[in-house]
C-alpha cells in the first residue's frame, strides 16, 4: 500500500482537525475494509487518522426506548447486546449474517456505514470504474453483474451497497450522528447514502472532515418482531445476493405496522417504502406480500447477469413476511 502518515487521535475534535487539515486523510476504524482497499491500491490516503482509541464504544439507552450506538462499537459487541436482541432482532441478525466472526470482532459500526462496494471492477485497478476514477467509464456494464444492484442504479454505476447492518438501519429510520470542524449534525439514514447518478464516487452525505460518532436507533415497537434474511452463494461468509430486513405486526389479519428494507439489490441500503405503503392497513397474506414486492421491484433495471434478482428479491420478501406473519 502507499506509505502514509499515521496519527492516533486522542479525542474526537483532534481526529476531526487532523483529517480536516490534510487533504487525502482518512479515518481508520477496525480496518477490515479500508486496509484491504489500501493494500489493493484503491484507497491511497496520505494520512491515516486512527480513531479506535476514541471514547465512542458505548451503547446507551435513549429516553424514548431507543438506543444510541457509539461509532466504535464492534459489530460482534453490538450483535451480542441483549437490548439489541430484544428490541431490534433484525440488527443483531444482520450483523451476525455479515462477514466472519473474526471480522465482526474488528469491524466497527461507523466503518460499516462507510463500507465500499464489492464490485469486482471497482476492485481491479485495470478495469474502468467511475467510482474509482470519475469519468473513466464502467466495465461492470456488459460485464459480470451477479453481485450488482438493480435498484437506484445509473448508467455510470451499478455497484451494490455491500452492508448488511445498513439494511436494518434503513428499515429502522436510524439517525447518523457526525462531527466535523463545524460541529455536530444528525443525518437520517435515508439521506446518509447517495445514489450514484453521474457522481458515483460520492457515496455519502459526509463532508471530508466529518467523522461518524454514533448511530441512533429510535424506538420502533414493531421491530421487536423482526427478521433479517440473507440469501447468498454459500451458507456463510459471503455477501448478499439479496437480503431482507423486515418487521411486521399483524392485527386481525391486517398489517398494523411494517418495516421493509433490501440489501444486495440497491445502489444504497434500500428502504422499500413503496412496498410498505401497499402493505400498511391491508391483508397480511401471500398475495399482498407478492404485490408489495412487485411494486417495490417494478423500477428495477436489470442486466443479463442479475435479472434473477427481481425474482429472488420477490421470493425472499414474501418468504420473510410470511414467516413474520405466521
Amino acid at each position: 500500500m502507499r506509505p502514509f502518515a499515521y496519527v492516533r487521535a486522542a479525542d474526537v475534535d483532534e481526529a476531526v482537525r487532523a483529517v480536516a487539515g490534510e487533504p487525502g486523510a482518512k479515518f481508520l476504524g477496525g480496518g477490515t475494509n479500508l486496509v484491504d482497499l489500501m493494500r489493493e491500491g484503491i484507497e491511497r490516503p496520505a494520512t491515516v487518522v486512527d480513531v479506535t482509541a476514541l471514547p465512542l464504544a458505548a451503547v446507551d439507552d435513549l429516553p424514548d426506548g431507543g438506543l444510541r450506538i457509539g461509532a466504535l462499537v464492534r459489530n460482534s459487541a453490538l450483535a451480542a447486546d441483549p437490548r439489541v436482541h430484544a428490541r431490534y432482532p433484525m440488527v443483531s441478525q444482520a450483523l451476525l449474517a455479515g462477514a466472519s466472526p473474526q471480522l465482526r470482532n474488528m469491524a466497527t459500526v461507523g466503518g460499516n456505514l462507510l463500507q465500499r462496494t464489492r464490485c469486482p471492477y471497482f476492485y481491479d485497478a485495470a478495469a474502468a470504474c467511475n467510482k474509482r476514477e470519475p469519468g473513466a467509464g464502467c466495465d461492470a456494464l456488459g460485464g459480470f453483474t451477479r453481485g450488482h444492484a438493480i435498484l437506484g442504479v445509473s448508467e455510470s454505476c451499478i455497484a451494490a451497497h455491500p452492508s448488511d447492518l445498513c439494511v436494518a438501519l434503513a428499515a429502522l429510520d436510524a439517525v447518523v450522528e457526525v462531527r466535523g470542524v463545524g460541529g455536530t449534525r444528525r443525518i437520517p439514514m435515508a439521506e446518509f447514502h447517495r445514489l450514484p447518478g453521474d457522481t458515483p464516487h460520492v457515496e455519502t452525505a459526509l463532508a471530508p472532515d466529518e467523522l461518524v460518532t454514533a448511530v441512533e436507533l429510535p424506538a420502533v415497537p414493531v421491530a421487536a418482531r423482526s427478521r433479517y434474511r440473507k440469501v447468498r452463494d454459500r451458507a456463510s461468509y459471503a455477501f448478499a445476493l439479496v437480503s431482507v430486513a423486515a418487521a411486521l405486526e399483524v392485527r386481525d389479519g391486517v398489517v398494523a405496522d411494517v418495516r421493509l428494507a433490501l440489501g444486495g439489490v440497491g445502489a444504497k441500503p434500500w428502504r422499500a417504502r413503496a412496498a410498505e405503503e401497499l402493505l400498511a392497513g391491508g391483508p397480511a397474506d401471500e398475495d399482498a406480500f407478492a404485490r408489495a414486492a412487485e411494486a417495490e421491484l417494478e423500477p428495477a433495471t436489470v442486466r443479463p447477469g442479475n435479472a434473477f434478482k427481481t425474482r429472488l428479491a420477490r421470493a425472499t420478501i414474501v418468504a420473510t413476511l410470511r414467516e413474520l406473519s405466521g
Partner: protein
Amino acid sequence: MSTEVAEAGRAEAVRQVGRPADRFDAPEKVTGRAKYAAEFPYPDLAYAALVHSTVARGRITALDAGAARAVRGVIEVLTHENAPKMRPLSRLNLGSFVKGTNVDYLGTDQVHWNGQPIAVVVAETPEAARHAASLVRVTYEELPAKLDFAAEEPHAVPQKGNAIMRSAADKGDAHAALAAAPVKVDLRFTTPPQNHNAIEPHATTAFWQGDRLTVHDTTQSIAFLRKHLAMRFGVPERNVRVLAPFVGGGFGGKGMVWAGTLLAVLAARATGRPVRLALTRESVYHTVGGRTPTVQRVALGADRDGRLTALIHTSVARSGGMPGQVTAASRHLYAAETVHLRQSLVDLDLLPPTAMRAPGEAIGTFALEAAVDELAWELGVDPIELRMRNEPERDPLTGRAFSHRMLREAYALGAERFGWRERDPRPGAMRDGRWLVGMGVATAYHPSLIMPAAATVRLGADGTVLVRCGLHEIGVGAATAQAQIAADALGVPLESVRVEVGDSDLPAGPMAGGSAQTASAAAGVLAACDKLKRQVLALAGPPLRGRKPEEVQARDGGLHVGGSGMTYAEILAGAGRDHVEAAVKAGWARFLARTARDGRRWVRAASGAQFCEVRVDADTGEVRVSRWLGVFDVGRVVNAKTAASQLRGGIVMGIGLALSEQTLVDPRTGRVVNPSLAEYHVPVHADIPRIDVHYLDDPDPTTPLGLLGVGEVGITGVAAAVANAVRHATGRRVLDLPITLDKLL
C-alpha cells in the same frame, strides 16, 4: 491353537498397514512449527512482487519503472529490457514436462494473456515491493485476441491422444443406435473454469551461491522442478537443491512450474540476494492455470428395460497444459452396445489451464452421471438399478479384464447405509418445512497409475529404520503411510521408522499427482525393503544362515524362520555393521514398458458410489447438502485415518464444484474478474455436512500392496450426485455448473 494360527494372529496384531495412525507431522502442524516455502529465513533476504499485464495479447511498447525505482527500499525492477535471460525449454529434457506455459518470462516484449508477469520488483520489504509494483506504468500495442470460450467452442479441433491418455473411441454406430433407441436422452452440459485455491499461495525462496541454487518452493514435483530449473538457468542438475518439507495444499496447481518460481530464481540471480516471492492471491490467479471449462454432450439410448444401446460423450475443453480425460469414465463404466467418444480443444489467448484434482474425470463424470440419472427418470427406473443393469463384466471397449471392480458391492453397501429405500422416487415429494429434500447417486471413477519412484531404506544397528524418498507432504500423510508400509515390510514397530521427504537430495520420488504418490512410492519402498532383507539375511549367522529369502519372515524387529530367529540388532552386531542400506532407482524405461504392458492386460481404477441428500429452499432456490455417504473401492487402504480424510476432501471440493465454484473470465478482456477468496466461493464449514466414508478395503491384485489411489476418486461423481439430488428435490435438471440458486428460481 496350532502354531501357524498363533503366528498368523501375532503378525496380524502388529500390522501397521490399514491402521488409522496419527500423522507423523501432526505435532508440527498444530504448533505452527511446520515451515512452508515462504517461511525460511535468510540473512539479507529481499522480497519480490510481480507486475502483471493488463491486456490479453500484444507487445509492450514502453515500460516506465521510474516511480517504482524511487520507492524507498526498492533494489531492482526487472523487465524484459534488463533481466538476465533464461535458457529455452528443451524437448529432450524431462524437466520440460512440467512447464506451466511456453512463455519466456521477461525474455520477451510479447504479451500472451491478461495477467502475464511482465516485471518483477525486488525490495527490502514485502510492502515496498508490492507498492512499487503498483507504480510500474506500461503501454502496449494491443493485438486481437481470442478470449471467449463459449464463442470459440464451435471451432474446437480434435484432441491428440496417446498410449496412456486416449481421446477418442468408437464401438459400432452409436449415432444410428441412438436414433433407433426407444428411450433416449441427449443433453448438453457446461462446466466453468475453476482454480485450485490451495490456502497456501504459491511461494518461492531462492538463494544462489555462485552457480549453486537452493530453492524452497511449494511444489508437487520436486524432482521435475529441479530438472526444470537446471535447464532454464544453465547449471548442472546436481547444483540445484529443491526443498519442500511441507506444501500447503496443491490439488494439481503446484504440479507444473509457474512464473513465480522461475522469476524468484531469476530475481535472486540478478540481484545477488536471497529472494522470496510469495504470490498474492490475485497473482496466483494471474499466473497459475486452473481447471479448463468444458462443453459436453452426453446422449444415451436404451431399450425399454434400460439396457444401453448407445453411449455418446463428446467434450470441448481448452488447449494447453495437460489436456484432461473428460470422457475417460465413459470408456469404462457402462456396457453399452455402441459407443462414440470424442474430445476436442479450443485455443484461447488466456493463461493455459492445468491439472486440477481429477482433471477430466471430475467434470466428465458430472455430465455422464447426470445423463444416466436423467435416463433413469425417462425410464421410470431407480437410478441404482439402471446402473446395475448396465454394469459390465469386462471393459466395454476393449474386452479386457478389470483388475478390480466392486461397483455392485459399493452401491449395495451405500444404499443400505444411506437409507436409499426410504427415498420417495417422485420429484418434490420429500419435504421438510421450507426445504425440498432430494436424494441422488452417482458413480465415482478414477484410473490408477503408478509412476517411477526411487527410495533408500537404511536399517540401523539399534533396529531403527530410515526411509528416504523425495515425496511431497502436501497433506496426504506421505511419510506416515510409507512408514506404515516399511514397518510391515521389515517387521518393526511404527515408532522405529523415520521417513525423510521433501528434498531433491533424497532419492527422486514421483510427482504428487494422478493419485499415484503413495502407490508409486510404496513400490519403491517395498522393493528397497526386500533388497534390504536379503542383504541382512546374507549377514546373519545361525539359525538364519543359508536360509532362502522366501523362507524368512520379517517380524518382531528381526528375521525369523518358523519359531526361531534373530533381531536386526543381533544380526548387525554379529556382522560388526552399524547399518545396512538398500537403494532402488526409478526406471523410466521400465515404467513406460510396465504401464504399456499393464494397459494391455487390465483396466485398473479406483471407483465408488456417491450418495447425496440435498435440501433446496422452496422460495429462494438455495441448495444445502445435508448428508453425504461415499463407498469407495480404492484397493487396500494404507492409513484408515488419512485415506478417509483425502476422500472427504475430494467430496468437499466436489461440493464446491457442484454448487459454488467458478472463475469468471471477462470475455471482453480475458481478465479474471474474481481473483479472490471473497468472490470465488470455496465451501466453508457451514456448507459441509457429516461425510460418511466407507471403503471396501479389498487389495487390487495387480499393484504393489493392492493400492489404487485415494487422492482424486473422491471428487469424481460428486457434482452429478448433487445435481441428481437437486433433480429429485425440485424436478429441475441443471445442466450448467455451478448449480447456483438462480438456476432453480
